[in-house]
């Protein structure tokens, strides 16, 4: 009996082959049963309506795109690598800015019940707002589409980090705080040597949720602001009716999203502890 992992891998691959096979079969162009009409001959065959491209076409395109991902042939023709790099850059900039605000403010809210009560209504009000709803206001105030996209990322990734930091800090076990107190640690050293490591797993959970949301939102934001980025790329290829490129970029969005999540998952492992 092969190990669970081997069996799972075999099953995964079979599912993939099955799905690709069904997709390939479903997207074959119909055979011309009778001779072509004069009109059809004029148009170059029976294929009139655009159909979803078969996986073979997508794989062929993926091969081409990935073998030269960073080419730049003008505003509307850049390699997939460049487009993804723009998106990742926007996500990370907005995300880091959100971190710079959310962690200290979260600490403050978590440490002080007064601040928690004072700020909580605003957080609860602002949190459910779709980040894209901020876009018009951002565009008007910032007057720059790139910075507006970054702002939208900032505003959507701040809430999970803020709330998780506050929750983690507020729920540090009183015993550990007492250990800091009996060893006469000052507030700053207590925060750094006891509260931060104690709350780190909860904080990292918030950061992981945030990066996931940020990556979801960047696609939509870039569809709106245009210019560069993977979201713009998807929309642009849709306008070109190049569905193979659309499907390919959907897959790439998934791959990058997964990598971002994996990176934070690794970071989470580093700060985890067992009681």
């Amino acid at each position, binding site marked *: 009996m092969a190990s669970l992992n081997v069996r799972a891998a075999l099953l995964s691959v079979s599912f993939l082959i099955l799905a690709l096979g069904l997709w390939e079969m479903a997207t074959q162009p119909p055979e011309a049963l009778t001779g072509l009409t004069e009109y059809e001959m004029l148009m170059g065959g029976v294929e009139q309506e655009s159909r979803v491209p078969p996986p073979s076409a997508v794989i062929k395109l993926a091969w081409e795109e990935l073998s030269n991902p960073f080419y730049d042939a003008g505003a509307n023709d850049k390699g997939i690598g460049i487009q993804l790099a723009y998106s990742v850059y926007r996500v990370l900039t907005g995300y880091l800015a959100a971190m710079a605000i959310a962690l200290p403010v979260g600490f403050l809210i978590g440490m002080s019940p007064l601040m928690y009560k004072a700020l909580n209504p605003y957080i609860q009000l602002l949190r459910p707002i779709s980040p894209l709803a901020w876009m018009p206001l951002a565009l008007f105030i910032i007057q720059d589409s790139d910075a507006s996209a970054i702002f939208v990322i900032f505003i959507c990734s701040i809430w999970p980090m803020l709330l998780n930091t506050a929750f983690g800090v507020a729920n540090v076990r009183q*015993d*550990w705080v*007492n*250990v800091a*107190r*009996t*060893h*006469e*640690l000052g507030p700053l050293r207590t925060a750094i*040597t*006891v509260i931060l*490591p*104690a709350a*780190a797993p909860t904080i990292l959970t918030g950061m992981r949720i945030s990066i996931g949301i940020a990556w979801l939102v960047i696609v939509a934001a870039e569809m709106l602001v245009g210019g560069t980025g993977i979201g713009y790329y998807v929309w642009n290829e849709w306008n070109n009716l190049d569905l193979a490129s659309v499907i390919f970029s959907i897959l790439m969005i998934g791959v990058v999203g997964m990598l971002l999540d994996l990176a934070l998952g690794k970071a989470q492992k580093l*700060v985890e*502890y*067992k*009681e």
Partner: protein
Amino acid sequence: MSKSFLEVDGLSKVYPDGQGGELTVFEDIRFALEKGEFVCIIGHSGCGKSTILNVLAGLDEASAGNVVMNGKEVKGPGLERGVVFQNYSLLPWKTTLNNIVFAVRARWPNWSKEKVKEHSERYLKMVGLEHALNRKPSQLSGGMRQRVSIARAFATQPELLLLDEPFGALDALTRGVIQDELVKIWEETRQTVFMITHDVDEAILLSDRIFLMSNGPNARIAESVKVDIPHPRARATIFQNPAYHKTRDYLVDFLVNRSGSALPEEDGSPRLVEPAKGAAEASSATTESETAARAVNA
């Protein structure tokens, strides 16, 4: 009266009872500890033992009264008073060694890294954990964790060591082994120790004096029982000493029959009792008033 090392004067704790009134858990607690003494405090649950210990530690505030150590009033926690908590309170993200290093560095911030490490390792060796330096608390058994916690407290060499029922969560065998270790460390260091326990045998093995608390609410430290058994003591042989049984009978009698009504002296200080001394033989036939009278005379 000469000043003692630690003086506790008129301590009381009052909580709101949830119905608009007040609940006095304990009141007018008075006692003194001398340097180098090992004192245990026994009482039924709810009499406020842990609160008294937390007040001594500076982690909790009393509603009235004060604590003076070395002529200075205790306000807030401090490194001159070390605490061993019942649930160990080790920092789970640090290794065994780093848990001690954390405390030693806080105590002597100017020490070099090597000196801190060497000092910490010495104390871990004292509790027999030199093989587990790099393990996390989650990889240790309950007994080993409590050893680390004890090593941490002793390593900072506090003037007063407060132990809050340190063996309460351990099985009987482990408890015995660590009690022996505590006896050994204490013989070496002669720290002043104030310890809460529910275990009469443990109290007799370890202490010079045992405080008996009456039941809460309005609990008092009613009696201070002298344990007249010479050091060094050992768990395996202590029961051969006749004073052991007399002391034990006296303690059990108090906890079973008298803890509800026992009162301290008129001035609020605990009645001094020496159950193992000469005629002071506690028998089950004595009435409460006789026992109390003898306690006064003792």
